[in-house]
């Protein structure tokens, strides 16, 4: 199949460079694909489990979809030949870099272009703040981190590239001189989260981050770790105030109060790789004639990626500053956070700029992906918990987290805060004090990865909770029930959740499950058979959303009732497109024929503008900006933080509601001959779709096609385009549509009537979520509990997961089979993290460029209970409960549940990860 492409154009100016972004379309029109795949199943049936994915046919037929699939010859208008680049990285970060052994690349192997730090200095590139650090290590400096790039080698033809890459892979191509030890850098961020609840649950907090703001200790230059004491030199006043409360909590825990059980434990987690299966890859072509740089990429953050490239080249001297950058965004072969803000596209763009006129491909192999790809942070944690021995209620919790951020800051400060604010999990704790600091190191850069720090802190917590229950002789589920945070209770930052909190239901499900119920019996049976059998439980809650998330959505319905959707979110396996289509179908009665993702340039009709940083803006600035009816706090965000269902589908769903209310509903009234004066004329929200027909009691069902035809012929609303923004609450705005006031969780709206053009409707009022919400840890959360039963062979330490069960709640599931699949995949990734995966942080680790999957083990089918893994999704609390993010939460309880099961089986309480067969064997010897 040959790919077809659609181009969308919008120019965004950054650094004087015009930007445009387009998406590489599916190999076939989705409507065709959908028809060919599942004939007769396109009609929306809420009872059906699903209708297949919109990308189904493309993915089983090997269509060109991923960035790594494209070569110059696949891009219309490009030269036919692809050149190839190698990004050379330093396998050492304790010696001075002295240059490359280019002598071994002579003759046919000689690169056409060698790009070094000198060249970047010469042309005047800038490093975007997010990626601060030398893009290429200059000669004479010690690399900032293992795997830091030192040069780009560009080869005109594949054969030379192919042979050269063998010639330089032995780890001695990059040369080093004098030993300097690692570069010491300041920490990436240090924070303290302290909360002291009032005397009763209803009383205001004595102190909380939401009241007092987030606090950081003073930066002290000559110390790697912050000084947390409120009495330290140069301590900011707001920090000192919070720290005094924090120190009081610690003093209480240390007071040897006989009524208080105090456990004080350390826990360490390892560095791991997201190991998405498609290594990072892309194409770049700088056409000197038109001064246009074209990029083909697969990233979770298209908008930011394009802007970062524009910034890098924005002040470059001619001819290294392109007039335009056009980026094409492809489907991704996995992401898991690891494709969110990686510096890869900067090097890709440089490869293109330094070989003008020739399309250049830069693609990691797996060794390079291990060497250069973003990693999960390794954590060192100390946790103290104080529990009232009589009531079994947690009185206080204190923790100290140290994150290894690796060589570049990347998302380290954010991971640290998200991890810290998740550190009390599902529990209601009146006194909490958590410090966290992310350190620079010579390790490979750590950043975003599924769980985003909470995997680490909640694993430590749930293992500690298990131990605490045992110390109190309380059943671990009963202990959790006693301490679970209620729906209106306050989180660590001092705010309640604004979504359903269904901990008791989840705990009940866990408690009644046969894996839990039969645990003693199974343990005894195992003992008879010479096996160590154990059962573990864990239950966690995980935020979704980043605190400034948005989506674009545009729906059009034609005369035949065919629906097309445009959306700005991207696809990395999570079926965002299918979720959008299914959510729209709830309102419009049919699954769309055309779904186009990863677009930010198909919404010109909204003519939106933005300014400022939505995370740090003050209220006054926001209020002033909001007076412009076209202003929004953010245009397009990263597809990350489990927001696909919740945020990614929001704008499209709201657009669909507008079409229903102002297009299909008035058409239905006409066909039913219901006059405006009839009370039923206002009951549009009670109408229901059934088998593609709009139904009302005692009225003839109306097929969608007929409604669409009527809406078109009567010039009713047949298209809507919207933008939605969330800062732990949706923006809400009022519009006048067809003379009717319409209020919805969107901040921009344009509509199309009949076959006309889209027209923007200025909002008559808007309420953006307050900027104080930036002090919230989260208000959106989903729950998941997991049970596992393990069987361990004492002699070998071999562990078999006999059975497992995960129960989760995520509001209304848009594509139930994908939710189930995510839970199964999360289970597998949890097993890998708990039992298999590990990367040494520094020398000997992935930065040496010699790591691959023989050494780095991820879970295979044989590591998993493929026939005994049960996933249960709680039905939504109400039929219209919004979808909640769940892609991360499903992974997390798997890890502590495994550790708790291992304890149950062996009596060993492991406090570091992973627990490999070798470690188990050693512990059991």
């Amino acid at each position: 199949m040959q790919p077809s492409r659609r181009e969308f154009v919008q120019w965004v100016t950054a650094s004087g460079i015009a930007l445009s972004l387009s998406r590489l379309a599916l190999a076939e029109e989705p409507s065709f694909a959908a028809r060919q795949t599942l004939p007769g199943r396109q009609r929306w049936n809420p009872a059906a489990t699903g209708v297949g994915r919109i990308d189904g046919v493309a993915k089983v037929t090997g269509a060109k979809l991923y960035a790594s699939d494209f070569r110059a010859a696949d891009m219309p208008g490009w030269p036919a030949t692809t050149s190839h680049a190698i990004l050379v990285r330093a396998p050492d970060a304790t010696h001075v870099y002295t240059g490359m052994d280019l002598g071994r690349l002579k003759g046919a192997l000689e690169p056409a272009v060698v790009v070094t730090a000198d060249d970047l200095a010469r042309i005047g590139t800038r490093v975007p703040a997010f990626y601060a650090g030398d893009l290429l290590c200059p000669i004479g400096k010690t690399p900032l981190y293992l795997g830091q790039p030192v040069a780009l080698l560009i080869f005109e033809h594949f054969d030379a590239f192919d042979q050269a890459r063998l010639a330089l892979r032995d780890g001695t191509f990059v040369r080093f001189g004098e030993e300097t030890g690692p570069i010491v850098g300041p920490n990436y961020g240090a924070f303290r989260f302290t909360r002291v609840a009032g005397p009763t649950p209803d009383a205001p907090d004595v102190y909380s981050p939401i009241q007092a703001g987030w606090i950081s200790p003073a930066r002290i230059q000559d110390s790697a770790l912050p000084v947390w004491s409120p009495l330290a030199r140069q301590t900011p006043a707001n920090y000192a105030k919070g720290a005094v409360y924090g120190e009081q909590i610690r003093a209480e825990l240390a007071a040897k109060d006989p009524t208080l059980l105090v456990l004080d434990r350390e826990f360490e987690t390892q560095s791991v790789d997201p190991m998405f299966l498609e290594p990072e890859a892309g194409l770049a072509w700088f056409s000197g004639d038109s001064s246009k740089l074209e990029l083909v990429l697969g990233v979770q953050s298209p908008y930011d990626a394009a802007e970062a490239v524009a910034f890098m080249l924005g002040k470059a001297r001619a001819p290294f500053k392109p007039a335009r950058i056009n980026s094409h965004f492809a489907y991704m072969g996995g992401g898991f956070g690891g494709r969110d803000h990686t510096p890869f596209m900067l090097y890709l763009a440089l490869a293109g700029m330094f070989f003008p006129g020739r399309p250049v491909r830069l693609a990691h192999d797996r060794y390079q992906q291990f060497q250069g790809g973003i990693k999960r942070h390794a954590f060192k944690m100390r946790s103290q918990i104080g529990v009232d021995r009589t009531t079994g209620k947690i009185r206080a919790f204190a923790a100290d987290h140290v994150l290894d951020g690796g060589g570049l800051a990347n998302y380290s400060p954010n991971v640290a805060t998200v991890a810290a604010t998740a550190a009390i999990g599902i529990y209601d704790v009146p006194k909490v004090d958590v410090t966290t600091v992310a350190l620079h190191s010579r390790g490979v850069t750590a950043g975003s990865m599924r769980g985003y720090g909470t995997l680490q802190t909640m694993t430590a917590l749930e293992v500690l909770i298990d131990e605490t229950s045992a110390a109190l002789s309380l059943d671990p589920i009963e202990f959790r029930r006693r301490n679970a945070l209620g729906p209106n209770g306050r989180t660590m930052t001092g705010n309640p959740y604004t979504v359903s909190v269904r901990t008791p239901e989840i705990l009940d499900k866990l408690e009644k499950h046969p894996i839990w119920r039969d645990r003693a019996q199974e343990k005894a049976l195992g003992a008879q058979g010479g096996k160590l059998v154990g059962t573990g439980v864990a239950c966690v809650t995980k935020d979704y959303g980043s605190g400034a998330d948005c989506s674009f959505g545009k729906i059009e319905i034609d005369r035949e009732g065919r629906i097309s959707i445009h959306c700005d979110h991207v696809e990395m396996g999570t079926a965002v497109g299918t979720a959008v289509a299914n959510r729209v179908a709830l309102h419009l009665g049919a699954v769309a024929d055309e779904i186009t993702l990863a677009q930010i340039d198909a919404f010109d009709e909204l003519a939106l503008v933005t300014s400022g940083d939505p995370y740090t803006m003050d209220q006054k600035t926001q209020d002033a900006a909001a007076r412009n009816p076209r202003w929004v706090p953010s245009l397009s965000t990263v597809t990350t933080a489990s927001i696909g269902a919740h945020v990614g589908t929001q704008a499209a769903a709201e657009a669909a509601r507008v079409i229903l209310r102002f297009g299909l509903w008035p058409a239905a009234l006409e066909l039913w001959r219901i006059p405006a004066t009839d009370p039923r004329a206002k009951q549009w929200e009670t109408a229901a779709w059934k088998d593609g027909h709009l139904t009302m009691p005692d009225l003839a069902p109306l097929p969608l096609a007929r409604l669409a035809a009527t809406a078109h012929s009567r010039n009713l609303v047949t298209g809507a385009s919207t933008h939605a923004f969330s800062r732990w609450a949706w923006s809400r705005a009022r519009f006048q549509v067809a003379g009717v006031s319409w209020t919805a969780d969107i901040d921009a709206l344009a509509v199309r009537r009949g076959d006309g053009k889209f027209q923007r409707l200025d909002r008559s009022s808007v309420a953006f979520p307050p900027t104080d919400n930036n002090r919230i840890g989260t208000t959106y959360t989903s729950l998941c509990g997991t049970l596992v039963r393990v069987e361990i062979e004492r002699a070998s330490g071999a562990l078999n997961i006999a059975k497992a069960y995960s129960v989760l709640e995520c509001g209304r599931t848009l594509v139930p089979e994908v939710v189930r699949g995510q839970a199964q995949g999360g289970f597998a990734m949890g097993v890998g993290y708990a039992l298999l995966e590990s990367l040494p942080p520094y020398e000997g680790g992935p930065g040496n460029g010699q790591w691959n999957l023989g050494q780095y083990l991820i879970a295979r089918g044989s590591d998993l209970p493929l026939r005994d893994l049960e996933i249960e999704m709680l039905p939504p609390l109400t039929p219209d409960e919004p979808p909640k993010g769940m892609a991360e939460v499903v992974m997390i309880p798997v890890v502590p549940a495994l550790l708790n099961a291992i304890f149950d089986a062996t009596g060993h309480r492991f406090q570091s990860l992973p627990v490999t067969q070798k470690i188990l064997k050693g512990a059991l010897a």
Partner: protein
Amino acid sequence: MRVKFFVLVAALAASVLAAYAGTVDQTKLVPPESFEGIADAEARSAAIFTELGKVLTHPRCVNCHPAGDRPRQGDEGRLHQPPVARGPDGHGREALRCQTCHQQANFEPGRMPGNSEWHLAPREMAWEGKTLGEICRQIKDPARNGGRKVEELIHHIGTDTLVGWAWKPGFGRTPAPGTQAEAGALVEAWVKTGAACPSK
């Protein structure tokens, strides 16, 4: 004379010990003549076998003489990835045969070792986890060496092409110590000196 002899034995014993402590060059083999100073034939034979043990216990050899049904790989001797099993004929299970990846010769770009005979040693020839003395007695036992006479081992170790691969293992793998011919010479000398085994 006698005094000198004892010194030599002591030195040899020390060198063998040191070899296993990692201070002697593990990449080389000492030739059979070096052992001529050991008067006691049995002790000499056992010492020669101990030298040969550098080869036999090297990951290039042990990885495919595993204790179970799954080979090992790499200089660390980690379990083979992807998971494979010896199957009915030592050439893998039907779903994943050794020859699928391990073809006629090493394929350097993929760091993939190859040989036309690539397969696992039979289960009874497992060396993994065994002491050199145990391996030695096993090698001599026709029931556990493929029905070979000890003389045939000279050929098996000295000239067999699959065994020979251990000295040309390709990128990323340490070759077995010495050369195949040197290993063959050690086997021959060991057989000729009575094929005695180290006690441990």
